[in-house]
């Protein structure tokens, strides 16, 4: 066998082995590398109370309520199976809307109640002009 063919086989084998190893490791990291907990994860294995966690999901449409003090809001974060009420005092990003994605940083004060210290908005992968969006894609603006 010619030397360059030997090198070709060797390098292809090395690259394939390395790729396989890293891809396996990365998909094994699935849960550890997740940036936030979804409501169903919380239901399955609740994080300890008073531990800083991130809770992410969709803001349930119609769930955002402003409390009497004017700076505290309450809303519900949901995924396909589960929902968790969240309370937050402060200023939310512009893209925080009902029916849109959210990541709340904070703690569970009781197993069913999450108090956020910071709110991040998560938008989806669609981009379009406003006239294209129509009603189908409209998300409720929180004033």
């Amino acid at each position, binding site marked *: 066998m010619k030397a*360059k063919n030997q*090198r*070709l086989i060797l*390098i292809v084998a090395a*690259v394939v082995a*390395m*790729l396989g190893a*890293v*891809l396996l490791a*990365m*998909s094994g*990291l*699935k849960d550890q*590398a*997740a*940036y*936030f907990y*979804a409501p169903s994860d919380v239901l399955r294995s609740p994080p300890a109370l008073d531990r800083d966690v991130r809770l*992410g999901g969709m803001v349930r449409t119609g769930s955002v309520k402003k409390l009497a003090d004017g700076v505290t809001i309450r809303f519900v974060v949901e995924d396909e199976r589960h929902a968790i009420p969240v309370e937050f005092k402060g200023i*939310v*990003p*512009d*893209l*925080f*809307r009902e029916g*849109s994605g959210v*990541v709340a940083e904070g703690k569970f004060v009781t197993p069913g109640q999450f108090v956020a210290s*910071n*709110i*991040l*908005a*998560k*938008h*989806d*992968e*669609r*981009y*379009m*002009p*406003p006239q*294209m*969006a129509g009603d189908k*894609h*409209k*998300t409720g603006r929180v004033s």
Partner: protein
Amino acid sequence: MHAYANPARFLKIARPLTGWLGLVGGVLLILCVVYGVLFGPADYLQGDTVRIIYIHVPAAWLGMAGWSGIAIASAMQLIWRHPLAGVAGRACALPGAVFAAICLATGAIWGRPTWGTWWEWDGRLTSMLVLFFLYLAYMALSRAERDADGESAGEGRMTAIFGLIGAINLPIIHYSVLWWRTLHQGQSISLMKGSSIDASMLWPLLGAAVGASLLFGAIVLMRMRAELAETKLEMRMRRLAAS
């Protein structure tokens, strides 16, 4: 490819190609970015903030394409000992690092008004930062190896191996938003599902990406020619010193 192993033949093609790629790429990039920023539509959700996409996405694409170039050149160098492959790999590093840095900077500027944060350690952002650091490491390693004296000096074999290994980060960046929950949204353009970016924004975006790629090609050719000229000069000086 070995027809271009002769630097003289390579230079005959590369010299005029540099100018054309730079000119066409530069004009296309500027036209598409100016159209997207000033005349294109705003986004239904983000408003005018979305216009940074015409810089952010081409920069991200080239940050990753630059390392793909390094990986391909490294493989050609290691397997076929192509004399220009090492030169080509090294030429991709600096522009790739600059585009990765532009991607990170515009991403932070975009994230602040939309997500509400400059930076978060999620899968996509972190793996892109790792790519930027890999570029810095690659450049430091290639410089160190070229400066080293001894039998294998100038061949850059360690650099090529590093270039090949570093490519493992590319699928991690790409799949980060699919494997892991991230703050960064999922992919907008896929071969299977098409595009979830409206055509009125997608075309100028693709135009800007193509323009930036041509410009990237021109920069790589320019840097390859510079390194070849430098080597030639060095050899001439050495001959002069010897005689």
